Structures are given as structure tokens and as C-alpha cells.
């Protein structure tokens, strides 16, 4: 049972890393960004490629992958997302989905369709009671908590964070002070994208990577963001872990239903939640 709980938290952590960017982009730009999954997947594949080049030094390859994806995320933001400002949602969904399609096909083309496993970089276990817990998973969960706290500090203390918080509420007010709101939203877009890549990289040793991995996590992430509230950072944190736990527990009881149960939970939440998603 303990192993299941740790697994639930681990999945929750990964979901959190991925969903943050989605939630922020929706909160700041009102755009549902399918291309987020492309940045995630390509980032992971780059990581897998860099790993052997860097002698298997995991943190180095991870850092390099995150850094390498920043220009890619920038291109997506500059040429796709920015063109979607003010457009109706449908076009945003279609355009960003198109980017995801292109990215996935490129992955298949460059790296092939075979799944790519990655070894657990820590490989050590700690004994809690009768269970051997992978230290690696504990690290993953701790990282998610650290990022959550870090983001809270960022949005509360840093000037960029404050500008974004202000702009989320009163965009015109910020503009009338002479600040280019789009520039700051772009910055947080890059942050969100980098966190997604980080999440993917952390996930790579836990589950094998394959070209459609972006699609799979994207669907669950949508559930996370809807349940947690689009643009609500604390809500995203909580719902990511709750849904991660749902996946883990369902996987234990009725394995094939694991991912799908998340949508059942989302449906239940939708039926009872009557606040900001409503007309």
C-alpha cells in the first residue's frame, strides 16, 4: 500500500510539472495549448539522446535538455501562440494541436517508434517497514514540492511575477504604466514549458518513452487543470496529486482502468462544481 501511495505522489508530481505550464498559459492567454505536449515529448527524446553523450550523467543531460528546448518553446510562442491572441478558442486548439501532430511525426521520423526505456539513475532503495521504496521517486516528489514553493515565491516576490499577477487581473492597467504585458506572459510561458520538460525528464526512468507520450499525459493534464481550476496554481498542485493518487490506486485495483478513472473523477467534479467554468 505504501508503495502505491508513493507511486501516486510520484505520478502526481510529474502531472504537476506538466500541468503548470498549461494552467498558466490558459490563465494568462486564454489559450488551450496542445503544443505543450510537443515540447514535453521532444524534450524527453533530446534528454534520452544526450544521456549517453554525457556519460550517463543524469542531471547534466536533464539540464541540457531543458535548455535546448527553450528556443523551441520560444519559436512556438512567437510564431503560433502569439498569433492566436484574441482568436477564438477553436483556432487555438486546432493550431496548437497541429504543432503537436507535426512534433510527434518528427519524433517518429528522427527517433523511430520503438519505446525508449531509461534506467533509474539513483538505483537505491530505502526501507520503510517491509517495503523497499525507490529513492528516486522520493526525489521526484520532493522536486515537485520545491517547484511549487519556488513558484509561490516567484509570483509573490519577483517583479516579473508581480507584473504577471497584476496583468492577470488588470491587463490594461499594467499596459498603461508602460509595461509590455505580452513580453512577461512570454517569459512565464517559457517557464511553464521548461517545467514540462523537466517533468518529462524526471518521468523517463519511471515509464518508457514513446512518440505518443505527449498525447497521453496531455489528456490527463487537462483533467488536472479543469479540476484544479485553469490559471489556479495552488489548485493545479492539489488536483495533480489527487489525480495522481487516483491513477495509482486504480492501477492497483483494476489495472486497465487507471488512466480512465481520472476522467470519471473529472466528470464527477464537473457535475458538482458550479463556479468559474460555468456560464
Amino acid at each position, binding site marked *: 500500500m505504501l508503495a502505491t501511495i508513493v507511486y501516486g505522489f510520484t505520478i502526481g508530481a510529474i502531472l504537476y510539472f506538466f500541468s503548470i505550464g498549461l494552467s498558466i498559459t*490558459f490563465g494568462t492567454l486564454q489559450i*488551450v495549448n496542445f503544443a505543450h505536449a510537443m515540447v514535453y515529448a521532444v524534450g524527453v527524446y533530446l534528454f534520452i539522446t544526450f544521456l549517453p553523450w554525457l556519460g550517463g550523467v543524469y542531471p547534466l543531460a536533464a539540464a541540457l535538455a531543458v535548455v535546448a528546448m527553450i528556443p523551441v518553446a520560444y519559436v512556438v510562442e512567437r510564431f*503560433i501562440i502569439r*498569433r492566436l491572441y484574441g482568436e*477564438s*478558442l*477553436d*483556432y487555438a*486548439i*486546432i*493550431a496548437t*494541436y*497541429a*504543432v*503537436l*501532430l*507535426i512534433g*510527434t*511525426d*518528427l519524433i*517518429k*521520423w528522427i527517433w523511430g517508434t520503438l519505446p525508449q526505456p531509461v534506467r533509474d539513475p539513483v538505483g537505491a532503495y530505502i526501507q520503510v517497514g517491509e517495503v523497499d521504496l525507490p529513492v528516486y521517486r522520493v526525489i521526484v516528489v520532493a522536486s515537485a514540492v520545491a517547484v511549487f514553493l519556488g513558484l509561490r515565491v516567484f509570483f509573490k516576490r519577483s517583479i516579473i511575477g508581480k507584473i504577471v499577477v497584476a496583468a492577470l487581473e488588470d491587463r490594461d492597467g499594467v499596459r498603461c504604466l508602460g509595461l509590455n504585458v505580452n513580453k512577461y506572459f512570454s517569459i512565464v510561458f517559457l517557464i511553464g514549458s521548461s517545467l514540462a520538460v523537466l517533468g518529462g525528464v524526471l518521468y523517463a526512468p519511471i515509464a518508457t518513452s514513446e512518440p505518443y507520450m505527449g*498525447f497521453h499525459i496531455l*489528456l490527463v493534464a*487537462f*483533467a488536472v487543470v*479543469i479540476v484544479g481550476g*485553469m490559471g489556479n496554481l495552488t489548485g493545479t498542485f492539489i488536483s495533480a496529486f489527487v489525480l495522481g493518487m487516483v491513477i495509482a490506486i486504480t492501477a492497483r485495483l483494476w489495472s*486497465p*482502468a487507471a*488512466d*480512465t478513472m481520472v*476522467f*470519471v473523477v*473529472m*466528470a464527477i467534479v*464537473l*457535475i458538482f462544481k458550479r463556479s468559474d*467554468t*460555468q*456560464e
Partner: protein
Amino acid sequence: MSAKPTISESSPSGAKKGRVLLELALIAACFLVMAIFVRLYWVVDFCIFCILVLSFDLLYGYMGRLTFGHVLYYGTGGYVASLVLVHLSPNPFLAIAVGVASGTLIAVVLGSILVRLRDAPFALSNLAFNQIGFWLANAGLQDYTEGEDGLSSMAESIGFLDFTSQPVAFGFMLVCMLLVFWLLRTFTLSPYGVMVRSIKENEERVKFLGYSTYFYKWLTFVVCGSLATFAGTLYALYYGFVAPNLLNPFGNIEIIFAVLIGGAGNLFGALAGGVVFKLMSNYLATAISRWELLMGVLLLILVFRFKRGLTGYAIDLRLRISRRRAAEEA
């Protein structure tokens, strides 16, 4: 808003009916011509797909709601119809009836919850239910649906209606498609259609006037779901085989693509888009290996350059020609 003639002020109903009949005849003629030049079974496929696209366009183009989970109904129709044929009776009409009823029921229930939602949550929540349906077909209800292996079925012939005969099947599907087109044409020209379009333009104003927009949104959702289910039952009857991929949520993108190509909010656009998309995917999928890459690029071009699709382009062209003519006459 500029002064537009209200529905009651436009052409008297006799002339209207005549016009619709003419349109139907024209469409039938186009499809028959296509059937001569293109493989017949492709054109049957066009008909079924066009019904699906029409059902989607009512919700997306006319009412302005994007759902990313429409194929849930398509697949439901396919599977329920197949199950009826296999377990209950080989009567195709029973299969269609039960199939459509089941899809409608699902739309009634889901619609009541989902229609309250706005843009993104609406689109994604539909996607979530689609995903649940997909999983049910693949794994959850595997004992009934045969999971990945797919479900085969066989419909009996009723009179001359033999689905194994290509020309007969084609005739039947064409008639079905024309029927759906006529139904939607009547809907959109009726006060109901005005209501739906008004909701797209300015829902607050409609609510202000005292209408329950919830009811009309729900009704539209149910109609669209039913029609998509209908398309699914036809699929099952024609191919005699359904697989979980029918419910794959990413199949929704094909429908959206078709609607964009043809031009949203226009029934002719839905037909045109459906046909063009199917033609493209049939020819290109065999010719080009990186088909998904191409589709992604085409989608991007469509969204950023040709938002209004073929019909939008056609309307612009007509405007330009008439303006030029007016300038020449001046």
C-alpha cells in the same frame, strides 16, 4: 447590428421548399458524378463521413461550440448497431433505431451536464467522455466489444436493400445523407436556427430577452449527438465491422479539419469539406509516408490563412466579382 430580414420576411415557404429540393437534387447529382470518376466505395465513405461532419458543424459552426469528443457518438452508433445485429436481430432498421436511441440517450444525459460549460472546459470535458468511451470499447467492456479485435456483424437484406451490394448501399447512404442535409437545412432556416445562431453571436443578449439558452444548447447538443450516432450505425451496416479506433479521440481532428476546409457554419461547406478531406486523406495517405506531418502543416496554414474555408473563399470571390461588375457598369 445591420438590418437583416427576419426569417418570416424572406422568401415564402413554397419557394423555400422548392429551393431546398433543388439543392438536394444538385448535391445528389454531384455525388453521382463523383461515383463515376472515383471508386464507389470511397463515395459511400464520403456520404457517411459527411453526415458526421454535418452533425459536428451544427454544433461548432452554427452554435459556436467546439467539442473535442464528437466521435464518442459515432463509435457508440457503430458498436450498438453491431451488437444489435449480432445479438438481437439482423434487421438493419432495428440496428439503426436502437443505435440512434442509445446515442441520443447518452447525449441527453451528458448534454445536461456539459452544456453549462464554456469554450475550453466544454471542449475538453467532451474529450474526457470520449476517452472513457474509447477505453470502454477497448478494454472496459471488452467482453462485449471484443476489444482490439473488433466486432463483426452482418445485416440481412430487406427487400432490395442489400448492404453487400455496392450500388444499393451507395444509394441508401446517399439518401440518408440527403435526408440529414434536408433535416439540418430545415432546422437552420427555422426560428430554431435563428436562435442557435443568435446564441453564437451574443448569448447574453438572448438570455436577456428571456430565452433559456441552456435548453437550446442542450437541444442542439442532443441533435448533433443523434446524427453522429446515425452516421456510426450506417458505418456498421456498410462495413460489417467496427473497431475501438472508431472512438479514438484524435479522430475528432479529422472532422474539425474537414469543417475548416469547407468553411464552418455552412452546410454546403460541411459537405465540401468532408469530401475534400476524405479525397485528400485517401490519396495522400497512400502517396506520402509522413502524412501526419503534412496534415499538421496543412492545419496550420488553414487556421492562419484560410480560416473561412472554401465557402468563405467562394463568398469572397462572388463579392469581388459582383463589385467589379458594378464598377464596370458605373
